């Protein structure tokens, strides 16, 4: 008993072990029955010798001496990798039972096995059915029957085939339910909404694209679920001001409300802004809201922090300024595809003392607007100017010198910026972690050198379609924290540059080499060796890449996405990947004409986590592995 308590304490103290060895029978005076090593991510439970334990048949199963408490503590630390849990449950009956009772989240691949799975896992609280394209009412009935008290969250966002009756059963039986995701249920009508209205404790509800739900249905939800904190009504085209107004009147706890593309006008906005805790409001693409309407709204909202008004084409700076003056606590504004960012709009940001993030994707930005914005805002952490026209060196340089705390900067497709901008960005914003500068074609080697030299904290860098060469890549490899690097369509880079990256960026997790045709096997092998944490790699149309690359990539055990469209790979390479990368979920092998049935068979055998394979000639062919994702 004392031993077990000691074990508990030790496991408790260790935050995240790599290997845990439980030596149960190696003699009583062992002072350290529980040892850790960080060499491999496995749990190793060793008996003194199997023969010895078989000989002592009168003794009970040695694993039974481990209490459930200990097993649960171990399981708590196995959350990261599903395969580990599977191995764990295969040790013995008691481990199997412990794992069954311990599991809280379930993501089944097909709903037919749902009753059996629910019988095995009685305490699942989080049921993600997004991988089951078809969920029938009877499957939902079995959920309602099996997880009466434990179910807290259910995700049906990608499933079809159920009706309101199924939802009703879940709603009535599962009293603890707090989260429902019913997005994309385009055929569900108000009856389903009325069923949801019976879940009294519901806190989060996603109804995106439920186009048949009308004000009547949302009214039932508003009256029934008064504890709602998050409500997503994106693309609910049947809902109007009345429904939203009723939600705002009844659900006073709302924190986050997404009304994107809902045909609402300004009439419901006073009620919405009156919500005492509202923090996040999305009004993307609300075309019925216009300047006059916004100016007529007199209600203030102190709590609002995030406002997304992208694509509101009928709102100009007058209406927007009027709204901003009512929401002094904003942290984040998104105005993507807004008409024009000028001086007058930028000056309306002046009163927002807490503003940290501005997204202006696709807007027309003037230099004076950018300068005024730089002067009006206090200290921004994030700025997105992607696809903005009119961004110049002058404006951007002025902006970054005013906002030295910038962490994320997106200047995608700002084709006019040059090394001058990069010089001021790198000198001012030393804490930059994300930099996207896709298609900034005027930036030269000197700019990349500055990035590598000054931005040591950079984690994500997007240089797709830039004038990047090996020397630039070598400079960039100086950012040692880089985890995402996108250097697609950089036609000048070659293996030499990649070798520098492999040496300089050991934490690289995602690498995009799409159509960077100068890459050969040598570069990919170097990456595979130098970046063991690699999860996503895109080698599409790198025509020089062959099976050798795949064999080397098979050493990257974390690889989950592999795109080798149009590469000269064959079945043998694919087999190596299938055997080595057990976590592979997405694979694109279109136009790989040398891959034949042999490769596919091996893939089917080994890659049990595979969810999506893109093949020639079929467009998208979803292969679901046979077994449950355990």
């Amino acid at each position, binding site marked *: 008993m004392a031993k077990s308590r000691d074990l508990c304490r030790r496991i408790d103290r260790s935050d995240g072990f790599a290997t845990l060895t439980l030596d149960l029978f190696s003699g009583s005076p062992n002072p350290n029955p529980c040892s850790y090593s960080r060499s491999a991510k496995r749990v190793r439970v060793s008996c003194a010798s199997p023969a010895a334990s078989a000989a002592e048949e009168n003794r009970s199963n040695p694993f039974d001496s481990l209490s459930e408490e200990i097993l649960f503590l171990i399981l708590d630390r196995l959350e990261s990798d599903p395969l580990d849990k599977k191995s764990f449950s295969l040790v013995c009956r008691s481990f199997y039972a412990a794992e069954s009772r311990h599991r809280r989240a379930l993501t089944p691949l097909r709903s037919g096995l749902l009753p059996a799975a629910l019988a095995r896992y009685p305490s699942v609280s989080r049921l993600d059915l997004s991988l089951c394209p078809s969920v*029938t*009412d*009877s499957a*939902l*009935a079995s959920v309602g029957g099996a997880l009466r008290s434990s179910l807290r969250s259910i995700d049906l966002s990608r499933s*079809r*085939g*159920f*009706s*309101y*009756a*199924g939802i*009703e*059963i879940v709603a*009535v039986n599962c009293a603890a339910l707090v989260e429902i995701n019913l997005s994309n249920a385009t*055929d569900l*009508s*108000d*009856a389903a*909404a*009325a*069923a949801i*209205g019976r879940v009294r404790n519901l806190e989060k509800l996603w109804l995106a694209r439920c186009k*048949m739900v009308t*004000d*009547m*249905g949302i*009214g*039932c939800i508003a*009256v*029934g679920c008064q504890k709602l904190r998050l409500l997503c009504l994106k693309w609910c085209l049947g809902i109007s001001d*009345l*429904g939203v*107004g*009723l939600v705002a*009147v*009844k659900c006073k706890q709302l924190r986050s409300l997404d009304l994107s593309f809902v045909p609402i006008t300004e009439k419901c906005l006073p009620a919405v802004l009156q919500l005492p805790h509202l923090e996040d409001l999305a009004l993307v693409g609300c075309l019925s809201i216009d300047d006059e309407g916004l100016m007529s709204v007199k209600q203030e909202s102190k709590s609002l922090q995030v406002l997304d008004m992208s694509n509101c084409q009928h709102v100009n700076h007058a209406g927007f300024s009027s709204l901003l003056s009512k929401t002094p606590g904003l942290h984040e504004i998104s105005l993507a595809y807004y008409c024009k960012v000028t001086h007058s709009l930028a000056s309306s940001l002046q009163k927002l003392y807490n503003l940290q993030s501005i997204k202006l994707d696709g807007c027309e930005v003037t230099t004076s607007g950018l300068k005024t914005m730089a002067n009006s805002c206090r200290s921004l952490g994030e700025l997105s100017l992607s696809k903005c026209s009119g961004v110049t060196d002058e404006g951007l340089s002025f902006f970054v010198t005013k906002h030295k705390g910038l962490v994320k900067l997106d200047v995608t497709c700002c084709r006019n910026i040059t090394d001058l901008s990069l010089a001021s960005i790198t000198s001012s914003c030393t804490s930059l972690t994300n930099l996207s500068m896709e298609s900034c074609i005027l930036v030269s080697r000197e700019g990349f050198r500055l990035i590598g030299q000054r931005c040591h904290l950079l984690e994500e860098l997007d240089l797709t379609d830039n004038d990047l060469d090996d020397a630039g890549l070598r400079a960039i490899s100086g950012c040692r924290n880089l985890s995402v690097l996108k250097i697609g369509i950089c036609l000048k880079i070659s293996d030499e540059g990649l070798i520098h990256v492999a040496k300089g960026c050991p934490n690289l997790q995602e690498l995009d080499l799409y159509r960077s045709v100068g890459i050969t096997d040598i570069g990919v092998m170097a990456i595979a060796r130098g970046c063991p944490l690699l999860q996503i790699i895109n080698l599409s149309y790198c025509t020089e890449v062959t099976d050798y690359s795949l064999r080397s990539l098979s050493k990257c055990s974390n690889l989950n996405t592999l795109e080798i469209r149009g590469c000269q790979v064959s079945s043998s390479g694919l087999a190596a990947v299938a055997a080595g990368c057990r976590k592979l979920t997405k694979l694109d092998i279109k136009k790989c004409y040398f891959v034949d049935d042999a490769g596919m068979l091996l893939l089917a055998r080994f890659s049990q986590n595979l969810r999506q394979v893109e093949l020639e000639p079929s467009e998208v062919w979803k292969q679901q592995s046979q077994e449950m994702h355990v």
Partner: protein
Amino acid sequence: MVPERRRPPEASSKSSSSMMSESPRNRKPDLPFTPFDSTNLWCGDRHGRSFLEFSPPLVTQSNGLFGPDRETKSKNQHEPSPVDDPVMDWNPRLMLSNLSFLEQKIHQVQDIVRSIISHEDQFLDQANELAAQQQLVTADLTYIIIQLISTAGTLLPDIKNALLSTNPAVGRPGSNQKQHEILPVEVAKASQYDSLIKDLNSCGGKEDELIKCSNNSGVEASEPIPIEDHDTKDNDDGMDGENLPPGSYEVLQLEEEEILAPHTHFCLICGKGFKRDANLRMHMRGHGDEYKSPAALAKPSKEASIEPQPIRRYSCPFVGCKRNKEHKKFQPLKTILCVKNHYKRSHCDKSYTCSRCRTKKFSIIADLKTHEKHCGRDKWICSCGTTFSRKDKLFGHVALFQGHAPAIPMDDAKVLVTSDKAQVSEASSGMPGNMDYNFSGNTSLDAQSPDLKGVDDGHGCFSPMTLDACNIWGLAEFPHSAYEVSESTFSFLATVPFKGMEKIKFQAAGMMNCSEQHYPVIIYIRSNKGVQVETSIMTDAHARTVSFEVPVYSWHLNPTSAEISICRTQHERGKYYKCRIT
């Protein structure tokens, strides 16, 4: 007279009966009166009372319900009641008498309550009587509160001033020549009473009527003649926003006979009457060639308008009406048509009753038709059972009351009921050809005649047929109480929705044993792809088939089978009958 329209029928008939006794000069004595319903026959004994006596209608109404107390109560009524003059010049004496009256009133209530206490054991077996007593007390208290507020209201300086300036003739009850109108302030106050009373008077039942009566009592008691401000409808009659200074126009006053005459244009030769002069001119052609000349056929007014005509306005012949030229705040009527409509609406009986709801009455047939377009189509329903004709009104109601929710239409709700028993119809979603909806819970609402059910079951309507058409025999069930057509049977033969047509044509054939000739019917069709289509048609009692078309765009996804339901209003939607698309 105008407020009658706002009041429930018993209130209107009550005041009209009193009207009859008090001011017969404005009416033909032989004008037919609205027949009383059996529910308000008890008002009959109140004939011949003056309007002042009419003042505490709450009490009288309670009396009607409650026999034994009538003697004492009616004594109260015959006392001169100074209470009901909140509009009058304020004087301390009046106030004193008001207060003493209230005191008296409170004592009465005390007495009643005391008697309830003393007879408590007797009431045990007479629950109705006890309830009536309670109602009486509530009504009395309500009345007291109204009077208290209105008495206090006279003290407010602005009201008082307004009253003084606009009502020089107050205090002379019975004078028909000088009228005054209710001040807007007063009306506003009345609405405040409304809300106040609603809070106080939670005993349901007669609540609304009580409130309305109390308000009306205040209005009528304060005026010698039950004539009030013109209402919104009178505004429609033509004088909206027109601000002609008095004297700048010529005022014409037609006599009542002229207004009510069916024809206004008469042939000088044969004496035939016409409603329009154009018709008369057409008629005149028959009397000789001299009437066929273009000059004779032309519109006469055009020739006359060469010289500038004085502006002509019209006055209502009903003395005391605001549209009457003697009225202090006379508002003239613009045209003869306005006069006719105003007179009929405001001063005539409402002889046209809506055949569907049987409560709404109109004096102009056009008004009736307008109403009938909307009658019975209150399709927005709250879970508490209240229906609304407008969605925003429903949502206002739901927002106001805790626990009320919008009600989803009936057929869906029924399935919700059944699903509680875990009867899940798995096949209901998108499996073509398999349409086993489980509607087991729907029998409670529909009075279904058994013979037709037999037809429904026995007829091989769902058997696969090789014909292009598949017949369905259906029965549209209507709640019997609403329209008294419980025995009327509808059997519909729906034919042939074809795939791929531009419009899908349904034909419904059957007999309609119904007293009414034409009435709209709503037809719901839904396909197995979940698409619901709603269409409305007029039925004809004589026609044996009715056909209607549904556009294909609302019918997407190529359904393989469909169901049809036929009903009067949306919330009556009952059973769906299946038909197959071939």
